[in-house]
């Protein structure tokens, strides 16, 4: 339709309404329109834009997200929480309609608690993803929009599932969801490997979200970072996205020697850490570490691609 092209609004792919569920009522629409189409064209733009990511590695699962809730071009909340704890060993990153996400997660929390009491053991991440996707698939076609990554550590180790409100349930190692996800995927795919250290993982997650907030208008605010370990989930940090990005920009390029920078003391440790890690990760393409002259051979081959930001990762970890 012409109006849709002008507004650049994509028609969501929906099936007919489920016969067992009540009609989406409550909207007085002009004669001749059905509520769904009307809402699509004229309805309020619900909060949709975001950048969330999650990846699993040897030491657990990392979940990170921005904190901007946007409604079209209006920032409804610059400091919202997009990573929701579901259980003591389970987190979910939420993207899509904030109201839908929060509501369904509350329902999920209740169901998991009941399951734990009945079975006497913590529910598995696979079972939780299954439960969420079956709960939501009943509402297919009713404009429910929940795109979430469930992160947890259960008897099978660190586990990560992507669940979408049409019933999709996928298992994987890296997921990024939201309008800023292409930018985050670029950074993640570059530097992810399963045997990262915890600090490398934190840096990678922060870097990916920071880059996404830089380019995507609907992502911004701060960067939340969570880590799920065997003992449960922990809230690592919240850092301002703009500050984080500026730090990454300031870092020196590859070719320079490691000069003592005018930064506070705690930064020295990550450098030393990175040196040791670089030794270990010589064979694998890891984040760039200029100190490791010997192992840096493969990285020096591509001078321009490994940009200043990568160095920044290793240096700036603790300051943020």
């Amino acid at each position: 339709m012409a109006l849709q092209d002008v507004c650049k609004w994509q028609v969501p792919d929906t099936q007919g309404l489920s016969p067992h569920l009540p009609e989406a009522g409550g909207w007085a629409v002009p004669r001749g329109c059905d509520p769904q189409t009307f809402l699509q064209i004229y309805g309020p733009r619900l909060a949709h834009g975001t950048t969330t990511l999650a990846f699993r590695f040897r030491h657990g699962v990392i979940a990170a997200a921005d904190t901007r809730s946007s409604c079209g071009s209006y920032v409804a909340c610059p400091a919202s929480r997009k990573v929701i704890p579901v259980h003591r060993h389970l987190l979910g990153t939420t993207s899509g309609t904030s109201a839908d996400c929060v509501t369904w997660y509350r329902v999920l929390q209740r169901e998991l608690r009941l399951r734990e009491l009945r079975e006497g053991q913590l529910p598995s991440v696979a079972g939780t993803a299954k439960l969420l996707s079956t709960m939501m698939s009943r509402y297919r076609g009713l404009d429910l929009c929940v795109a979430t990554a469930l992160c947890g550590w259960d008897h099978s180790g660190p586990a990560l599932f992507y669940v979408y409100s049409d019933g999709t349930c996928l298992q994987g190692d890296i997921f990024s969801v939201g309008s800023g996800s292409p930018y985050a995927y670029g950074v993640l795919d570059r530097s992810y490997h399963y045997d990262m250290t915890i600090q490398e993982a934190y840096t990678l997650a922060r870097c990916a979200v920071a880059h996404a907030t830089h380019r995507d208008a609907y992502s911004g605010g701060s960067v939340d970072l969570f880590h799920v370990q065997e003992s449960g989930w922990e809230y690592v940090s919240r850092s301002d996205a703009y500050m984080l990005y500026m730090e990454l920009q300031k870092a020196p390029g590859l070719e320079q020697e490691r000069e003592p920078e005018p930064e506070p003391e705690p930064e020295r440790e990550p450098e030393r850490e990175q040196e040791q890690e670089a030794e270990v990760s010589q064979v694998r393409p890891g984040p760039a570490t200029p100190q490791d002259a010997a192992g840096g051979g493969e990285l020096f081959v591509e001078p321009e691609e490994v940009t200043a930001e990568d160095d920044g990762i290793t240096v700036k970890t603790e300051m943020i």
Partner: protein
Amino acid sequence: MASRYDRAITVFSPDGHLFQVEYAQEAVKKGSTAVGIRGTNIVVLGVEKKSVAKLQDERTVRKICALDDHVCMAFAGLTADARVVINRARVECQSHKLTVEDPVTVEYITRFIATLKQKYTQSNGRRPFGISALIVGFDDDGIPRLYQTDPSGTYHAWKANAIGRSAKTVREFLEKNYTEEAISNDSEAIKLAIKALLEVVQSAGKNIELAIIRRDQPLKMFSAKEIELQVTEIEKEKEEAEKKKSKKST
């Protein structure tokens, strides 16, 4: 007095009995014996096979049934009731896998069967299931388990147990002979089960059905030949033990 309170099962008697449930337990005592043993790395189920008529095909009588790859059960009591319970349990095993993405634990399926049995002791117009079940298997954590359910809907974990006719005799035998060394070895655990059954079964090996589950392996039913082998070994050991005894005394 009992006769006034045993018609409808939903009625308690003045002294707190549910007579229909107790009569169901009597029906179980009429069934052929089944014995279950939990070893360190193996679980064993043995049942007494009732002698079949000449023209009857033996293979259609099955008292040990797999509920899933890692769980199986034997029962004592009404065969038809057992068939219904086993079907429901098998469906539940698969439903559980579908919703929770994990195979059932032995305790879960036992609880399901016990809850099912209890429902039938509390609804009008139905009678309780006339079976007791021995449910064995290995959980994901590799620990072997043995549970017993009865018609009232209770279940307990056991190290070794017997149900059906002469269950008391067999249980006493097990209490005397179930030792740590008896179950440490897989073949010793199997022999213990056969020995326990031989106490009460007539004409030895032909009337015994045996099944084992080893950790991470599916159910294995013993053929008649294998059982014969075991029985002959047991008898040999018995003779040697008696010879030693007589030598010592003379």
